[in-house]
């Protein structure tokens, strides 16, 4: 059981950091282990934002190990050297925690090749690359993660988030949601459910050159959609295809620079409540998440089995 939430403002920006925090905090009982935010912020859209981690925040059942901070610093230096050799121009760098960084940079080449080279450095994982996507995930509830990464001030158009209860993999950042839709800039995915054909799909996608960073089944959705889009499918086409391509029970959200979509499996086994109005669409695993940002009386509904919907900003 995990909690997922998302919202998209149409035609305007809002304080999506605080709004998503309120929604995820209301879902804390569904997932107390880790919290993740994928915020589509009002950046200038000129430069890439790369968020990456050089170590783990190790929780219960994690296959990772605690390391000394000096190791993190050495890895960060290796990343800097690699960026230089790849020709990326770093304009601004921020150290957010001992193990995670946010870089603002300019880069014009293929992101897949770029990511592969950066992630060839031991224990380095790119959490996201995008011109508006700010993907943050860490252990703790929504409030703790918001405070740790100072997300309260982030303004943007849309966001998706996840409160995780670890089931099939340990409590750590690499298994936390959202997952970046590697190698596409500004694509992120959150998921509630279990996928039962994970290994079959993973082997198939790895053979096609796609990369998996964790053993979390939800990562498959991000990679699956990314592979479809790489082959020319639109986001909506990829999502519709996933209803038959992915086996198991799931409700997931996927966001791109200018859109947000939801898909529900054909068994309708996982919950989702939707609220749609002309200027705002909000969705969450439980109504209580939507109520946390819309206290006035509203009309909400459960999408039916096998439904796919995509909204534009």
């Amino acid at each position, binding site marked *: 059981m995990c909690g997922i939430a998302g919202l998209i403002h149409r035609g305007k920006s809002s304080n999506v950091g605080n709004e998503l925090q309120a929604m995820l905090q209301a879902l804390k009982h569904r997932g107390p282990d880790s919290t993740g935010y994928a915020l589509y912020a009002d950046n200038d859209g000129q430069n890439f934002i790369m968020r990456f981690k050089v170590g783990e925040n190790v929780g219960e059942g994690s296959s990772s190990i605690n390391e000394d901070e000096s190791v993190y610093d050495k890895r960060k230096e290796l990343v800097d050297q690699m960026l230089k050799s790849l020709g990326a121009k770093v304009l601004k760098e921020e150290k957010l925690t001992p193990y995670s960084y946010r870089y603002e940079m300019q880069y014009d080449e293929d992101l897949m090749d770029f990511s592969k080279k950066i992630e060839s450095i031991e224990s380095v994982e790119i959490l996201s690359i995008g011109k508006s996507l700010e993907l943050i995930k860490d252990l703790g509830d929504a409030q703790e993660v918001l405070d740790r990464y100072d997300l309260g001030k982030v303004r943007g158009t849309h966001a998706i988030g996840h409160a995780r209860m670890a089931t099939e993999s340990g409590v750590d950042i690499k298994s936390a949601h959202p997952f970046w839709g590697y190698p596409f800039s500004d694509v992120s995915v959150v998921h509630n459910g279990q996928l039962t054909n994970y290994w079959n799909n993973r082997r198939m996608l790895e053979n096609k050159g796609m990369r998996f960073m964790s053993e979390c089944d939800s990562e498959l959705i991000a990679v699956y959609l990314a592979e479809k889009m790489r082959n020319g499918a639109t986001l909506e086409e990829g999502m519709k295809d996933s209803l038959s391509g992915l086996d198991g029970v799931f409700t997931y959200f996927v966001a791109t620079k200018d859109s947000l979509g939801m898909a529900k499996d*054909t068994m309708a086994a996982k919950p989702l409540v939707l609220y749609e109005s002309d200027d705002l669409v909000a969705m969450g695993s*439980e*109504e209580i998440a939507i109520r946390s940002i819309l206290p006035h009386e509203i009309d*909400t*509904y*459960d999408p039916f089995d096998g439904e796919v919907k995509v909204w534009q900003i």
Partner: protein
Amino acid sequence: MANIKTNENKTKAQSMGLHSEVLTGKTQQKFFNPDEAENFYYWGTYDVDFNKRIDLDVNDLDCKEANKKIDELMSQGYGTIVIKNPQGKHSLGVGVLNKLNLIFEGSLGYFGVGSIDGPTVRINGRVGWSCAENMMAGKVVIEKNAGSCFGAAVRGGDLICKGSVGARTGIDQKGGTIIVGGDAGAFTGFMMQRGRIIILGNVGINLGDSMYDGTIYVGGKIGSFGSDAIESPMTKSDVDWIKRKLKVAEIGEDFDISKMTKVVAGKKLWNYDALEPTEKKGAI
């Protein structure tokens, strides 16, 4: 106490060779023993007066506190309780075991008004998953939409949703009536054992999958039948009964009931009561 052991009158099912074993066992004897009065006493039931009305704002209360407060008000004799600002909270109004007018001005989260026996509930908003689960008796009316597992394991009473409902409506239903004014999702009537479901709109795939008994009436299109579910002809008594139920539910006034599809279980399990197949029950 009825002596089950020496009862010579065979039921029709027994005469057909079904479950011919003699029922024995201490549990049954004890349960039905009228001398043991405590078995018939409902804890937490009160004599309430419908004319005594009170508003309860649950905005700052969690579900435990809110339910405790409702219990406290019933113990003071309040028979009409209006809940303000439920704000999608879970498990509100559960376990009410006496007559009561319970009105929610807003929406409920999951497991709303579950395990109730007797109250009349009106919810002006929407309800989340598993509304009125295990309801024994009473009437619940929801003005907007409902989530999945609507009326799971309902044993009696009337459960009415004027909007649309999610998947698995009436899963494991054991009695009572579920009425839906709009559409219903997949697996409606899943593993249904008794009772009736009326859906005025469309239903999703696998309607009545693995149903043992019971009847489902559908006004709109059916996505697909589940295994064990078959169509059965509508009779006049079906139409009369639905007409009466819809009147009570205050929906579907001009609805053409005769064009509805009636769905029943296609096979009877050997250990299930074959004495009263739903088709022969007639209008109640």
